[in-house]
């Protein structure tokens, strides 16, 4: 009798645990937000040292003191092409700001020439950083482009946006972060 009771208790506990897992699975909503999670958020940005397609040296650490936007880009990726005008719009809106955000394109699995041609044709005068072996993408955990990252003047990763930017999203997020940073 006692062992039967024990079996019943164990079965009930296991049943409750399984039911709880099931409930969690049912009620949890897959993360559809464009603002994505990353273990890097709130952490110092990974060390990045590379060069631009024009041969200038680029060291991310040296940009501490500025807000930095890194946009992982490929000239053949449709969402990257789609969001390009929004990036230009954002860059233009920042131009007059004394605390302007610096934008950098990180070339992902693409040739420097193809990227140069794309920018000549479509505009955008910010620097384009080479990432020939994908080290920068791996350092940030970027698997698919486009991705946009925001780094604060203390060198901490503040935001990750996966996928194509929507109109006004970048401005809204940067303003929110900048306000929070200065207050």
């Amino acid at each position, binding site marked *: 009798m*006692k*062992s039967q009771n*024990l*079996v019943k208790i*164990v079965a009930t506990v296991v049943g409750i645990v399984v039911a709880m897992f099931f409930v969690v699975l049912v009620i949890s909503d897959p993360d559809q937000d464009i603002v994505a*999670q*990353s*273990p*890097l958020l709130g*952490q*110092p940005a*990974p*060390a990045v040292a590379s060069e631009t397609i024009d041969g200038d*040296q680029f*060291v991310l*650490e*040296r*940009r*501490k*003191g*500025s*807000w930095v936007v890194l946009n992982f880009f490929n000239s053949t990726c449709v969402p990257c092409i789609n969001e390009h005008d929004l990036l230009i719009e954002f860059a233009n809106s920042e131009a007059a700001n*004394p*605390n*302007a955000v*610096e934008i950098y394109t990180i070339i*992902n*699995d693409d040739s420097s020439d193809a990227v140069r041609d794309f920018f000549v044709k479509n505009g955008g005068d910010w620097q384009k950083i080479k990432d020939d*072996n*994908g*080290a920068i*993408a*791996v*350092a*940030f*955990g*970027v*698997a*698919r482009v486009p991705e946009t990252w925001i780094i604060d*003047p*203390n*060198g*901490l990763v503040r935001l990750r946006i996966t996928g194509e930017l929507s109109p006004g999203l970048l401005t809204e997020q940067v303003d929110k972060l900048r306000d929070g940073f200065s207050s």
Partner: protein
Amino acid sequence: MKTRKSVWLATFLLVAVLLVFGSSRTGGPKTQQDRIDAITAVLACPTCSGESVFVSRAAAAESIRAEVARQVAAGLRTDEQIMSYIEQRFGGQVLLVPRASGVDALVWALPVAALVFSIYLLFSAFIKKRTNLSGELTEQRDFLMNSLHDLEQEHKFGDLDDQEFESLRKDYESRAASVNAQIENLELDEQTLLETAGPVAKNLPRTLVTTLVVLLVGTLAGWLVAKQSGQRLAGDSLAGSIEDSTATILSRARATNFVDPKAAIELYTQVLEVDPDNVEALTYRAWLLVLIARSAGDEVKQLAFTSASSDLERAIALDPDYPDAHCFLGITRFRLGDDALGAKEQLTICAAKNPPAEVKSFVDSIVAEVDAALDK
């Protein structure tokens, strides 16, 4: 009896020793390619379904493979640290083998613990069944003994003839002897089981203690299996190296630069103790010293000027392209050294090297003053 007990104990010890040995095993020497293959084989391609980085040809997988190869070639990190580096960038889903620690370890530990506990429950149920069987046989024996007694009474009163009585008596006695033998065997087995396992049937405290022991053994076995089979990662920081922990301190120092300059100076000094050539720490410690000394007396200003100039010049020598050091040296020369010409030289280099916005704001506020001093 004692022999059976010893066998159980020996089996348990053997299993425990094997598990401990297995969980602490170390691999032999590997070539760099072996290491790269081994690491990439247990990493999931982040853009494919069910493929490892080792087999995938996707761009993301190739980038990870290249990064693993670069880190293996650099020889600064262990396999676990490299996997940890990748996992901390792409998240836990990049590990094909669940981790041996944290919640993931339950994947390994729970089935083993459940198996051990199930065996215990089966064992208990088996003992109970045997106890029930013993009761049935006792009833059967009593019935046969009663029947034998009735038979003798019937024969005594002449209801049965001698031949019939003898035939039935032999049959009853034979059956009773058989049942007796079964009962004796069962009692022997049961006693052995009671001695070795401590069944649920005994009493409640003993049952609880036994259950706890079984749970403990199950948990221990699960832990050992998790430790042996789970993915072992280095428990280091996000960055996983001195360089990266330095980055964390530098970020903290940056955040306190103008809130608590003395605390920031301590943090920069901390960085310089680990990495004496850290250009950022040299530059910003010097700059904060200058800012603090500005409101001090001449003697302190002179000391600060000498110390800060020395650190800033060292930073420039280490990294001539670092704009911040040039900018701050220019400001220091002008504010504390009354050297407008030397200041102008450094501020010009600073402007050419595109300083970040925060530094540029300091420079913009002084350029006009420096130019005016030079025009005099």
